[in-house]
C-alpha cells in the first residue's frame, strides 16, 4: 500500500492552536505604574469582599454620642454626623463602587459589542441604522444622558448604574464596528467563508477573538468613568440613597461640615481618586502593551 510522505491532516492530527496571552508578564513588569495599580485594585477587591469581616463597626449603626469625632485609634477615619464609623463605611463603600464599575461596564459593553458586531459584519442598512442611532446618542454629553435616564427611572443606585451603562454603549459599538470592518477583510475570514462556515461561526470563532483586545482597554478606561459618574450622581442625590455607604453620597453628607469635620469628605474623596487613578493607569498600561504602534513611538 502506498504510504503518503505528508499525510493529509485530520481533526485528530491538527495540533490545538495555542492562544498567546493578551498581555505578557514582561510587558506589565516594564510598566511599573500599571503593575502598582493592578496590585492596588486586587487589594481593594479583597478588602471589598472581606468588608463584613474587616470592618470594625457596623457601617449603618448610629451613635449620637460619637458624632463628628476626628480620626483616632478607635475610629481610624473619624465619625460622621450620625456617629457612624467612616472607616467601616469606606470598606463597604468599596463594594458599591467596584460593583457600580463592573455592572455599568457590562451594561455598556455587552450590547455595544453585539451591536458593533452586527453593524460591522452585516453592513448595508442595518449598519446605517445602528450607527445613526449611535451618532445621536453620542451627541449627548455622557453625564447629561445619564442624568436624563435617571430623571425617568428615578433616583437610586441600580438606576444610576443602568444610566451610566447606557450612556457608554455608543463608544463600544463604534470601536467594535471599526475593528470588525478591518478584520472581516482579512485572509482567514475569507477562507472561513470559502469553506462554507456559517455566519455566526465566522463572527464568534474568527472575528470576535480579534476584536476583544481594544474592547478590553476601553472597558478598563470606561470603568474609571463609570465609577466617577456614579459617584457624581450619588453626590447630586440621584444615585445611592442614604444611609447606603457609597463614597459619593458620603462626600455629599460631609459637605455641610467642611470646616468642623473635614475628615468626612477627605476619606471618601481620597478613596475615589485612588481607585479611579489606579483603573486609569492600568488601562493606559494595557493600551501601551496591546498597541505596538504606541510601544514603538514612546
Amino acid at each position: 500500500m502506498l504510504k503518503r510522505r505528508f499525510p493529509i491532516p485530520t481533526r485528530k492530527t491538527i495540533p490545538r492552536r495555542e492562544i498567546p496571552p493578551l498581555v505578557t508578564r514582561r510587558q506589565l513588569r516594564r510598566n511599573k505604574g500599571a503593575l502598582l495599580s493592578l496590585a492596588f485594585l486586587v487589594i481593594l477587591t479583597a478588602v471589598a469582599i472581606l468588608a463584613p469581616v474587616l470592618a470594625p463597626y457596623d457601617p449603618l449603626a448610629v451613635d449620637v454620642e460619637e458624632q463628628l469625632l476626628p480620626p483616632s485609634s478607635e475610629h481610624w477615619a473619624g465619625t460622621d454626623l450620625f456617629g457612624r464609623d467612616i472607616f467601616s463605611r469606606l470598606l463597604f463603600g468599596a463594594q458599591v463602587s467596584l460593583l457600580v464599575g463592573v455592572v455599568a461596564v457590562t451594561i455598556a459593553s455587552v450590547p455595544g459589542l453585539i451591536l458593533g458586531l452586527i453593524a460591522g459584519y452585516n453592513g448595508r442598512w442595518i449598519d446605517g441604522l445602528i450607527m445613526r442611532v449611535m451618532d445621536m446618542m453620542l451627541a449627548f454629553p455622557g453625564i447629561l444622558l445619564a442624568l436624563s435616564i435617571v430623571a425617568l427611572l428615578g433616583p437610586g443606585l441600580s438606576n444610576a448604574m443602568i444610566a451610566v451603562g447606557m450612556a457608554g454603549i455608543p463608544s463600544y459599538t463604534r470601536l467594535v464596528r471599526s475593528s470588525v470592518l478591518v478584520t472581516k477583510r482579512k485572509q482567514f475570514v475569507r477562507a472561513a467563508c470559502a469553506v462554507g462556515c456559517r455566519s455566526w461561526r465566522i463572527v464568534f470563532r474568527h472575528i470576535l477573538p480579534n476584536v476583544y483586545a481594544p474592547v478590553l482597554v476601553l472597558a478598563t478606561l470606561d470603568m474609571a468613568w463609570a465609577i466617577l459618574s456614579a459617584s457624581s450622581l450619588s453626590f447630586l442625590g440621584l444615585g445611592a440613597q442614604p444611609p447606603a455607604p457609597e463614597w459619593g453620597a458620603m462626600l455629599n453628607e460631609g459637605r455641610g461640615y467642611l470646616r468642623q469635620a473635614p475628615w468626612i469628605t477627605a476619606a471618601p474623596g481620597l478613596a475615589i481618586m485612588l481607585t479611579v487613578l489606579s483603573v486609569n493607569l492600568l488601562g493606559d498600561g494595557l493600551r501601551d502593551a496591546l498597541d505596538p504602534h504606541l510601544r514603538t513611538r514612546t
Partner: protein
Amino acid sequence: MSPCHRVPLSLWKAMAMFQFIGRRLITSIPVLWGVTTLVFLMMHLLPGNPAELMLAESGGSSQSIAQLRHQLGLDDPLYAQYGRFLVNALRGDLGRSIFTNRPVTRTILEQLPHTVQLAVAAMLVAITIGAALGIAAALNRNTWVDSLCVTVAVAGASVPVFWSGLLLILLFSSLLHWLPATGQGSLKHLIMPAIVLGLASSGSIARLVRSTMLEVLDQEYVTTARSKGLSEGLVVCRHAFKNALIPVITVMGLQFGYLLGGTVVTETVFSRQGLGWLVVDAILWKDFPVVQGAVLLAAAIYTLVNLLVDVSYAILDPRIRYD
C-alpha cells in the same frame, strides 16, 4: 483645462471652504433631528410615567394621575405627541415648567450664559495646563519630568470634580479667605469653579499634546529649524507646537461636551446658577419639560460646537476641505 483654472486661486479656495461648511451644516441637520427624536422617545418610552412620578410623593390617586396625563397630553397617541413636540420645538417652544409655569425656553436661556461662561473659562484653564504639561513631557521624553507630567495629567483626570471643589473651598475660602465659596457675578467667583472643571479635563489634553509633540519633534522641518540655529523656544513655539495643535482642536470639541456635563456637578458644589443646576433641580422636582428642554439644548450646543471645530480644523489644515 479644469474649471478651477479660470477663477483666481483665492476665490477657488474660498468656494471650497464654503462648500465644506455647507456640507457639514447639512449633515448636522439629521443629527439634530435625531437628537430631538431620541429625547422625545426617552421621555415617552422608558419605564417611568412622568405623571405617576410627579404625583408619587403626594400619593396621588389614579384619577388625579389620569387628569394630569390628560393635562400634559400624555394620553394622546405617540405620533400625535411627537408631531406636536417637533412643531413646537421648531418654533422654539419647549413647553412650560410644571412648577413655575414659565416657558421652558425662557428659563433655559436665562441660565445658559452662566454655564457658557463657566465652560469657556474652564476650557481656557484646561488648554493652558494641558499644553504646559504636554510640552514639558514631550521635551523631556523618557525622563522623570515626563513621568511626573503624565502622572499629574492622569491624576488630574481622576480627581472627582466635587471633591477638588470642596478642597479648594476649604483652603481658599474657609481658611485663607481669598476667594468667595459660592455665588456668581464677578471674576473672583469664577476662578475656583473654572480651575476645578478645567483641571479635570486638562489630563486628556496633556496626553494628546505630548503624543503629537513627540511626533512633530521628529519631523524633518523641526530638524531644519534647529540646524538654521533657531533658539529651542522658537523651534518649539513656532514650528512644533503650532503643528501639534491641530489634533488638539478636535479633542477640544469633545472636551467641550465633557465640560458642559461637568458644569452640572460644579454648579452644584459652588451653588452657581446655570444649566446644570437647573437640570438637577428639575430632576429632583420631577419637572420633565425643563429636563427635556435643557438636555435637548445641551445636545444641540454640543453638536454645533463640534461643527465649529470641524470648520476650524479645515481652516487650519487645508487638506481636509479639499478631500
